[in-house]
């Protein structure tokens, strides 16, 4: 059995196979252990997702910029009135979902590239995830509250 074949078998095989290969790997560099294995065949998936998400973020921000510039003012009445329209509230919710995920992934890449200490890296990645999900939820709930308050308000008026 060649080294490459043994590595492949250990990568695909059971834990026992991995143990056997592990002893044969003693003294080998990390590069030496993976050389010849080929790609994991899923490396491109996240990369593609990032690009698709970036396109979505771009389109939604063009929509937001055009919408805001077209509003006559940015006072509470005008903004609430605008967000009561489903054709504004729904793109706004999509924008929040796309943007907060985009910034979560973006900040994660920066941390992964520049923070080399494992513990700090994990802590920062967790903080980023918590903050982006938390702020995104706050923003989304606020849009829903404004949008649905309209129904309650019109229902209350005689």
């Amino acid at each position, binding site marked *: 059995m060649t080294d490459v074949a043994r590595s492949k078998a250990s990568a695909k095989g059971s834990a026992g196979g991995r143990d056997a290969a592990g002893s044969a790997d003693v003294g080998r560099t990390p590069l030496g252990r993976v050389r010849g294995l080929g790609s994991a065949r899923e490396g491109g998936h996240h990369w593609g997702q990032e*690009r698709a998400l970036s396109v979505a973020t771009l389109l939604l921000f063009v929509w937001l910029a055009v919408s805001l510039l077209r509003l006559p003012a940015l006072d509470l009445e005008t903004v609430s009135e605008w967000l009561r329209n489903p054709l504004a509230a729904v793109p706004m919710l999509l924008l929040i979902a796309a943007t907060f995920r985009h910034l979560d992934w973006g900040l994660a890449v920066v941390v992964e590239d520049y923070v080399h200490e494992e513990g700090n890296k994990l802590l920062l990645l967790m903080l980023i995830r918590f903050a982006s999900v938390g702020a995104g939820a706050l923003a989304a709930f*606020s849009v829903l509250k404004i949008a649905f308050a309209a129904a309650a308000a019109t229902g209350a008026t005689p």
Partner: protein
Amino acid sequence: MTRNPDRPLSPHLTIWKWGPHMAISILHRITGVGLALVGMGLFTWWLVAAASGAEAYGTFAGWASWKWALLVWVPLSWAFFQHTLSGMRHFVMDAGAGFALDTNKFWAWAVLALALVLTALLWAWIIYGRAA
């Protein structure tokens, strides 16, 4: 995985001569982090304030229209244009195009210039267009 500090590193940032493409690459990250932390914070504050009633919205609007808040708004709008335009340049490069040195340099300069022009146009419109 730990690195053996005795082994040499390949030449890094301090060694290379700076060019517009390098500036744009690192600016993409800096503006991205800025937009993520400052921009999304303000965006969330704006929506939460709008959902919380007149008093909360008044606090936000009071801060947002304070003249010194321009020191946040203007750089933030520039960061938005810079990040968006260099992101679009990245789409082209992700497709495998635009790597020839001349082309790459030209579009790097173009992105830097265009972001400044768009920022200037936006604020000219906000200050002069809105009033008219």
